[in-house]
């Protein structure tokens, strides 16, 4: 009993990147426990997904054909049944919105200790998980008791598995009760709007640091003076100060401009997920320890209400 079970994720016909990252994390654990890496793929076109997931280091792939799109009842039942069949040491799931919609149920019904949002895993006589707390200000290591565990992993922390594998691919009958209490009725793209920030070359983006909606015109003046495109982190959109189509991050848009000027943005992981692909990241923040400076190329540690007017002056 030292195998690892990783559960892939897909949406609207495509495997999500985290699925390939799960393979890497799972293989690493399997090497440490001395077991096999089993991969589960549930719902949708499982045969084609299985072919894509058959990468180096994968020993077995189990397809569960029930359902088209993600449904937490189907996923929880499928993983529970596979767990009973395979008896793995660790179940590895994505720390995605859908992962968090079924992983806690899986852990609860199998009575497994659950650790979410892992950024590193280590197995040496037991599982140790590295994770962050207090908005990424500290990192912690957590020893997890018991013979079997469940973890969810943060996206983009492990490289995607590559190469072509020779896994055994087999269909698994999980005996799913489809008469569940929740029904997915559709999908909706949000915030089309007039501007597509994902196309912008120069983005001026604002966060909590601007404090009040009344300070927005100051930033708009900078945007106008530099011919930039205005975007923001989540709190600005949550407050209704800018429309949803301006939000950069995990649940917003992914942007890849030449320059991303982050003003008053601390750099929470959910935001960074949307902008780390920028060629140049510039940060203006009063807190020299703000995580945004860890990924920035240029920085100003200072008060945006002093820096921004000076910057506007430079371009007028």
């Amino acid at each position: 009993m030292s195998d690892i079970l990783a559960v892939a994720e897909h949406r609207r016909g495509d495997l999500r990147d985290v699925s390939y990252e799960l393979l890497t994390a799972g293989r690493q654990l399997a090497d440490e426990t001395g077991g096999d890496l089993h991969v589960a793929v549930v719902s949708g076109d499982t045969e084609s997904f299985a072919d894509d997931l058959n990468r180096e280091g994968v020993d077995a792939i189990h397809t569960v054909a029930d359902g088209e799109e993600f449904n937490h009842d189907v996923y929880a039942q499928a993983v529970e049944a596979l767990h009973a069949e395979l008896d793995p040491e660790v179940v590895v799931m994505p720390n995605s919105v859908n992962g968090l919609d079924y992983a806690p149920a899986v852990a609860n019904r199998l009575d497994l200790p659950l650790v979410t949002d892992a950024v590193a895993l280590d197995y040496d006589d037991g599982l140790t998980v590295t994770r962050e707390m207090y908005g990424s200000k500290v990192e912690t290591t957590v020893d997890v008791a018991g013979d079997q565990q469940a973890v969810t992993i943060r996206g983009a922390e492990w490289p995607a598995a590559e190469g072509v594998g020779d896994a055994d691919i087999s269909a698994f009958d999980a005996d799913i009760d489809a008469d569940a209490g929740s029904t997915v009725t559709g999908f909706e793209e949000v915030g089309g709007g007039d501007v597509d920030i994902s196309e912008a070359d120069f983005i001026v983006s604002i966060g909590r640091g601007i404090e009040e909606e009344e300070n927005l015109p100051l930033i708009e003046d900078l945007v106008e003076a530099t011919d930039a495109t205005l975007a923001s982190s989540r709190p600005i959109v949550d407050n209704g100060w800018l429309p949803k189509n301006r939000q950069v991050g995990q649940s917003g848009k992914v942007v890849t401009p030449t320059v991303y000027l982050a003003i008053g943005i601390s750099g929470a992981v959910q935001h960074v997920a949307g902008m780390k692909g920028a060629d140049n990241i510039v940060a203006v923040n009063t807190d020299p320890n703000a995580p945004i400076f860890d990924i920035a190329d240029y920085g100003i540690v200072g008060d945006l209400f002093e820096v921004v007017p000076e910057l506007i002056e430079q371009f007028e």
Partner: protein
Amino acid sequence: MKVLVTVKEVAEVADDFEIAGTEVDERYLEYDLNEWDDYAVEEAVQLKEDGPADEVVTVTVGPERSEETIRMALAKGADRAVRVWDDALEDVDLLDVETKTNLLKAVVEAEDPDLVLSGVQAGDDAFGATGVSLADEIGFQWGAVVNALDYDDEENVAHVHRELEGGVEELTDIDLPAVLTIQTGINEPRYASLRGIRQAQSKEIAPKSLDDLGLDSGSIESDLDLTSMYEPESESDVEIFDGDASETAGKLAEVLTELGVAE
């Protein structure tokens, strides 16, 4: 309909801080209502104001200190509160999901709500798992990361939007009783009015021990052991501009011009 809202008092860490052992030194912590729970409270209070809900009760796992935070939720319109605590919880560095589930399950059994609202995650430990775990344990349906809620009184169904990654929302119908984990931005949390703050003083906060909930110390034995805490190592090679606002802005303007995005 009775709505139960899980409300957590979370610690926020100052910009500069020190770590003592496996904790942030108490001097650098400030306590506040968990941001996500603020939206959950607002959603519950709106359900009451709009008609479907008759009563909004909050539940908090926290020491006596957390009553200040609980009063904030009461001032915003919750009717009464339950606070669960036991001295045995003082020594636990990191409450695991199972323990929180056990404690909240006991409160759900006593309160018998139709709907439980919980923040998506807590700003301190950021597990993001308690709501769904609780739902599974008590046999309720659930939905995680809900950013729009339309409750249909006749059908007893919650029509929700779940905020997926990348600007996509999933539309889901969830039968009640249910647990929904509430995402920020679903509404605009109100400020507590002076009148609300005054009224909150006379609202009930019922303390509950493990005994009161029919639990023993075995139900709070955590599977997780926090073994180290440290500041993440920065791999940054950021070039910081020195000088006053005028000088730093000047250097930044040069860079923006060199990169060809502004002139």
